[in-house]
């Protein structure tokens, strides 16, 4: 068998998806015009699948900070955090995160993927167990697999199922790490974090939450789902990314365990990769300030996603269980989902088409993510686009 033969099926699938027009997966964005507008397939479209929740990619303060960092500190660090890649600004961002979350330790990573990979694969190991939500992101799965710990899944957002599994495990293992996301990336639904905290308390497990899709969106200070539910201090580890609401690139882990800091020296995904560019760090720091200073951005985002959720519900789309920054419409048939995606694009609206195995079940999704930068008129047009699918 040739090296590439095993990719034949996936190659066929993607060829099929692309045969009637622009690629729905890895869609070329020919030009980006603003946080909410771009050119796709020669036409100007509304971008409604970019995770640009607060719309900060073109925020003047963020751009200015990035430009100044480029001028002052250059294009790249050319080294790992443990070698020559820890600038004053990397440390300053860690201090700012630590302060924002009211936790003793913070570590900044080059991407959110690496934050999950590094932390999870390192803090637990052989003899320990991980119990994670079944719908967790690939980076959580990969970190878990690399850790060497026994990996167990609990039914998506089902704290009773988690409790049952933890009880079965407790007497048998070393340390136990429970992992969930704050808001789930595919359906936009929120973890029942208070109930999960109960399980943690009863079992003495450690609890980690990935707030990739909730930082800047939930909680009175925008710190995420745990803050929204008043249980931030119960989190042993809060992870997240700078690549969504903060409009940049990078990831973080914060913890009130002072011991986290020493873990730096053991995480391969942190040690053996170059640190974030100075410009990335500068834009993140500026975006973090904007996020804290302008809570009205999350209010606006919430109004948008509640409107889109209600609108799509009215159009009889099958949606996730509750409104969230991601509103996903579900299709049993991938061909129907693809056809809907093309109609939406021709109506001038770009969303994400997600097909199995990237979706939690066997179904396909049209995944729309909203932004505080969308205008009310753009939301009208997004809804009008969806109504064309149904007509």
């Amino acid at each position: 068998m040739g090296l590439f033969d095993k990719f034949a099926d996936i190659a066929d699938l993607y060829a099929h998806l692309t045969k009637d027009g622009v690629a729905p997966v890895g869609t070329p964005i020919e030009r980006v015009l603003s946080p909410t507008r771009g050119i796709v397939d020669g036409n100007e479209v509304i971008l409604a699948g970019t995770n640009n929740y607060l719309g900060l990619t073109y925020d003047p303060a963020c751009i200015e900070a990035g430009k100044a960092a480029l001028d002052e500190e250059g294009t790249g660090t050319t080294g790992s955090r443990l070698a020559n890649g820890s600038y004053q600004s990397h440390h300053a961002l860690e201090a700012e995160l630590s302060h924002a979350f009211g936790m003793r330790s913070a570590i900044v990573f080059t991407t959110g993927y690496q934050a999950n990979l590094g932390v999870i694969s390192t803090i637990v190991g052989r003899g320990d167990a991980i119990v994670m939500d079944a719908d967790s992101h690939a980076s959580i799965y990969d970190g878990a697999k690399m850790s060497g710990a026994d990996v167990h899944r609990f039914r998506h957002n089902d704290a009773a199922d988690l409790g049952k599994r933890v009880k079965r495990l407790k007497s048998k293992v070393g340390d136990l790490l429970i992992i969930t996301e704050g808001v789930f990336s595919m359906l936009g639904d929120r973890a029942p974090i208070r109930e999960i905290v109960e399980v943690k308390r009863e079992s003495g497990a450690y609890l980690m939450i990935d707030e990739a899709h909730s930082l800047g969106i939930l909680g009175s200070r925008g710190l995420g789902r745990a803050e929204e539910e008043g249980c931030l201090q119960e989190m042993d580890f809060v992870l997240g990314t700078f690549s969504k609401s903060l409009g940049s690139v990078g990831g973080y882990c914060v913890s009130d365990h002072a011991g986290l800091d020493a873990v730096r020296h053991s995480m391969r995904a942190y040690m053996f990769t170059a640190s974030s560019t100075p410009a990335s760090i500068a834009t993140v720091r500026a975006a973090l300030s904007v996020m804290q200073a302008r809570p009205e951005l999350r209010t606006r985002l919430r109004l948008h996603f509640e409107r889109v959720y209600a609108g799509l519900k009215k159009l009889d789309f099958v949606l996730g269980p509750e409104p969230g920054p991601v509103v996903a419409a579900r299709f049993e048939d991938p061909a129907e989902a693809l056809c809907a995606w093309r109609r939406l694009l021709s109506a001038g609206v770009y969303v994400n088409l997600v097909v199995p195995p990237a979706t939690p079940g066997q179904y396909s999704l049209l995944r729309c993510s909203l932004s505080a930068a969308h205008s009310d008129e753009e939301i009208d047009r997004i809804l009008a686009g969806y109504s064309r699918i149904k007509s």
Partner: protein
Amino acid sequence: MLNRVDCQEAVLRLAQDYCDRHNKSLRVSESTDLLDEVGLTSLDVMELIESLEDEFDIALPINDLAEVRSVGDLIEVTMKAA
């Protein structure tokens, strides 16, 4: 403590149930291939595992499942976790 006979009986029964429910005229044995012959998808395997876990009040780590192909393999990983 789970003994092998009970374990074997339960795994065979659950796999047979699945075939019957999906109108597959197949007599399941230890050598039956769950993926190729029974045609379980990875989600079906998850469900089958859950039924086993509930039946014996055990937790099967997913680390071991990558190697499960046959009904016999599933019996082995279940015995290991019990």
